């Protein structure tokens, strides 16, 4: 706390030093024209929407682009169950799910634009990734898809008839 205060005080000292200077008196850097600013914005406004859509497509295509990469990673990880392959597979599964849940926030920047197509592609890409991850799980034997996976939940049979006996004593 005290340290904080000290640093605060220091900063204050600093700030005082800074504000003492008159900023408005400073000349503009060479090549900078404050009046030019609005003109430039007009020029960019035309390409802005195109850029935005391009960015949008970039975001939408990202999952699809990941697919070959993921395939390679999966191939490299192998089917043996050990800590690194499991971690990789876990990442593969969790990432697309996360992406799906944050779908709306990913496309937030382009409000008002019709981004349904992009969203669809994004969705499909992530689903492909999930399917891929599930396939990996399946081939690693992590999915409880066989009867053997439920074997330990099978309870022992209760006996209906009771029996006892043995060799006669002599």
């Amino acid at each position: 706390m005290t340290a904080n205060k000290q640093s605060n005080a220091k900063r204050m000292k600093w700030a005082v030093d800074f504000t003492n200077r008159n900023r408005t008196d400073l000349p503009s850097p060479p090549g900078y024209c404050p009046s030019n600013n609005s003109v430039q914005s007009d020029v960019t406004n035309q390409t802005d929407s195109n850029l935005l859509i391009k960015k949008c497509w970039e975001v939408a295509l990202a999952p699809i682009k990941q697919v070959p990469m993921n395939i390679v990673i999966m191939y490299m990880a192998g089917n043996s169950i050990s800590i690194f392959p499991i971690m990789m597979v876990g990442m593969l599964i969790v990432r697309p799910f996360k992406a799906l849940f944050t779908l709306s926030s990913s496309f937030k920047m382009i409000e008002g634009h019709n981004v349904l197509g992009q969203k669809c592609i994004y969705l499909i890409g992530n689903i492909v990734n999930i399917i891929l991850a599930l396939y990996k799980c399946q081939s690693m034997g992590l999915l409880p898809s066989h009867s053997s996976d439920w074997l330990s939940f099978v309870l022992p049979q209760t006996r209906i008839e009771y029996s006892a006996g043995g060799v006669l004593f002599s």
Partner: protein
Amino acid sequence: MLKYLLLAVLCIAQTHSLYEDQVGKFDWKQSYVGKLKFSHIDSRANIKRIYVASEDNAVASLSLGSGTLLWRQVLEKGPQGAIVYFHYGANSLVTVSFNGLIRVWNPNDGSLLAGWTLPLNIRHVKFMVDGGNFYAIEVSSAIKTVLVHTYKLASGSLNDVVKKIPATWLTESTYCETNQNVLACLVQGSVKILFPSSGGQTQILEQSVPSATFLTPVSSAIGLPSFKAGNVVITVNNKNIETSQIECNSVHVDKTEDTNKVLAICVRPLSKSNIEVDIFISQQKISSNNLQLKTQIAQSDINVQSCFCKGSSPSCFCILSSQDHTTLFISTQGKVVWIREEALTSIISAEFLDLPVSDVDAAIEKEFDNQECGYFEMFTRRLMSQFYQIQTLLSIESPAFKSSALVRDKFGLHKLILSVTSVGKVFAMDNLSGKILWTLYLANVTPYSVTGKQFAPVFVQRSTRYVPYPAQVSILFKQSTSKEGVLFTLDPITGQLIHGDQGQKLGYQVELSTLLPGVNKNHLRGILLLDSNNQIHLEPPSSPVPKPYFIYKVHPQFGVLTGYFVQEDLKLQKVWELNFGQPVVHVASKNPVEKVHSQGRVLYDRSVLYKYLNPNLIAVATHTPDNVFSIHLVDVVSGNLVESIIHKRTMGPFHMVHSENWLVYVYFNEKTRRNEVSTVEMFEGKTQSNSTAFSSLSKSLFKPILDKQSYILPVSQVDAIKETITEKGITSKHILIALGTGSILEMPWMFLDPRRPAQVTPDMREEGQVVLEYTPELPILSEAIINYNQTLYGIKNIHTAPSGLESTCFVFAHGLDLFYTRVAPSKTFDILKEDFDYALICLVLGALIVGTVVSKKLASRKTLKQAWK
């Protein structure tokens, strides 16, 4: 080849092996010799020792002070190796076995000095050793002569011409005995004493003993060969006969040092734990002492084996052996020096029992005892018990700590081994130390016999879990005289008999007995007894009988199996009968406490093959005189023969283990002259018809899938086999095989699995399961020998029991040696390793924490610096 061997070694290394520093940590071995037959105390040597020969064909040397075994040699098994003569003298021990072998042993280390065969029929020959010569004395009533054959002890060469002593007095009924260098014969009321080893004319002494009907040699000091004829003790002292009349069954004759008078020591039991030792000099009782024993012995008879005396007011030390196979070493001053419980070589039943909870835990359990009380009362109880806990923690003198020796531990690794012996002696041992906690002698009882093995059923009716009630165990014996059943009920923790010393006499001959599965309101499991009239008796009489209940009987001689249904009125209704027409050698049913966790077996393609877990299935082994060995799998409820498997040209000994859904049996193949192990595994198939309940009656049409395989067991003899058992049945099973050479081999079921493929394909391996390719010969790996270099002689049986830990199984093997250990077939997965380094993990954790703190500091400093750039 090497590849498979390597794989096998790998598997063993994975499953079980001991580290060298763990020797004696989990196991103990006790060595015995059996009931004493002959003994000799060597008091003159610098190292005082006792030399003994036993009924179990063992020759051994014991230390005089402690009774520990110095060396032991075990002769041939069975009656062929029975020791009929024993002599100690001139730095050699001589034994004569029933098979005619004379062996001379080095008394220092038990190595053989000489061994040769007596070319005579041993049955009618008496022996004696005198001055480097071995005398075989043939008493022939047919030619009225005593023939004395003399041999060199060291080589067995005939030393002299056969000496013939004419004895016209010999008759058919003449009974002769040797003691030291004297032969005594009882002839119609008189005892004739001969000296066969002395040269020249043979002198014959005579003593009339009118009332004598028997003649026994008596333990005596050197130079005082003595015999007991009736009540008269005859002592040959320097070729003179001295007699003394002592009313005592068992005596020792010695002489006093100064007066050279004949001294007699007489021992008689007063009660089960009390004996009296009297010393007589010239028939005058000069001292009498009462000895309190820490064990219970048979009251009937006690035998003075040998003694040695010193001092003028004689003080003697004696070895006694009682009818219940106990060997005692006492001083006549009234002190028991040591006791050896040799009855432990004849264990017929053993049981692992839980110990009671500690007093603190008992108080907690009492707290939750009855639920009816109100909240306030429960709260006060809680406070009280916690106060009590604190109190016990603080004060060492608290009563809770006094009984702490015999309490249950957290992992259930501390148990009590209750063993019943064929002589009627019951022992309770601590499984961790092997210490005997209490002994109990049950008089006038004999064990039952089942397929040639002695057997006394032990029923654990109530464990220690039901705190207000004590644990209860019953042992069933039959009376020696009437053959009727006697039930001894006792508290296994204290060894107190509940129905008194004589037990509960049942008044009928018991044909069959079993422990009922249900408990009565006192948490007591009932015993069902079947008498020879097919009448059911329950003990206690109100015990609940489960319904429907079936009972089967096996008549071993004729191979007849009969099944009965228990009706409402507890009458038996015969429902099925099988007739094998061959003698039954073995019946294997499943261990009733066994639990099976996995209901199926996962195949390599990840499908499930469900196990055929029929609780009513037994395996009956029959053997015909033409050497055909058959295994019949019988459902004892429906009377169906599930399968019969025959092995032609096989011989015993047969051993069989039946557990879960499989069967393992060992036999000797006469054709190929090797021991073979066959395994049978039963499966229901890929689907389960009824996954919740098993009914033999509704399944009578069903035939399980049987997988069979056979392996070569490259050992010369198997003494016993047993499977490991764990509490929940999750741990994989191993088979313990007691080999004739004295080792116990732990064989993983994986090796015996009948589904071992002929060729392992890569996709079988991929599943992560260890699949072993079929090899006909099983590996005998020294790492799998659980008793390592502690050879166990003559293993009779192995007992296994689950511990409180799922991974761990107790093993108790008995024979001439007792051996206890614990095994973990799937390694100790539920407990930290013995060598777990607590310090290291603390160090690493500490270092990590420090590292994080430091690096955090450093990182923040760096970001600050970076911000300044």
